[in-house]
């Protein structure tokens, strides 16, 4: 990491239009069963809710606890088929300051190994700012509503 990158905030480092590194993974039947048990929904079709695709792509690039999930927009096409490899591609599509809070928008698409579109999802995130812990900022947002 360059000296400049080291002193930039996460928000400053995030570049609109940046394609994040794609990743692939498999949701097994055991993982699906466990997810359904945890959320107490025996018919849950999208365990990807806990997979947090856009956030995971972001975290792979910027590290953990650098973006707080303050909103989600999702469109669902085909339920996850256990055992099928899922490929996730994600892009930073926007960033903006609102009431001095740094927001970042990350879009992701998830397609399985047979080319079946699983979901498109958008993460509305609040980025880490300076040296303050991320969730301290999120708490302030909640308190000022």
């Amino acid at each position: 990491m360059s000296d400049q990158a080291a002193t930039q905030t996460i928000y400053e480092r995030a570049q609109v239009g940046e394609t994040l590194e794609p990743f692939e993974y498999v949701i097994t039947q055991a993982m699906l069963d466990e997810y359904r048990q945890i959320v107490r929904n025996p018919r849950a079709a999208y365990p990807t809710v806990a997979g947090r695709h856009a956030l995971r792509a972001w975290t792979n690039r910027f590290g953990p606890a650098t973006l707080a999930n303050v909103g989600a927009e999702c469109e669902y096409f085909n339920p996850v088929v256990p055992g099928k490899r899922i490929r996730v591609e994600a892009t930073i599509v926007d960033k903006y300051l609102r009431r001095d809070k740094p927001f970042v928008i990350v879009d992701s698409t998830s397609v399985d190994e047979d080319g079946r579109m699983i979901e498109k999802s958008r993460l509305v995130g609040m980025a880490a700012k300076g040296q303050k812990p991320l969730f301290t900022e999120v708490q302030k947002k909640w308190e000022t509503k």
Partner: protein
Amino acid sequence: MGNEIAVGQEITSASHLISHEMLVAFERVIWTRVANVHSDPVTAKRVGMDRTIASGQNQLAILHQMMEEHFGDGWVRGGKIAARWVCPVYVDDTITPYGRITAIEEADGKQRVALAVWCQNQSGAKTGTGTAQAYLG
């Protein structure tokens, strides 16, 4: 629900106790994450919180369940949701999902329903709000 639904009608689904065990399990079931404000009380305290909080995805899963129960495959194949997490959900809170039908329209040769959706805690405060859509029939 089929043809029985009407604009203005409200729907709901099971309430969920947000237990510590559930928060921990949710953080590792599909994507194993490091200890964080959702799963680890020490981490939560380090950033100024007195207890752990649920992630927005926890609330999203609860809204999913309501949509799946009421609209079945019309949600699973073609459902949409947009939500903002507007108030913290703390460990041991109880969260209930709600929806109110705002429109029923033709789309792609099928009926499509639009809803306002929200999650509410045991005190009646809305913790997540948004909109959703699903096909009917």
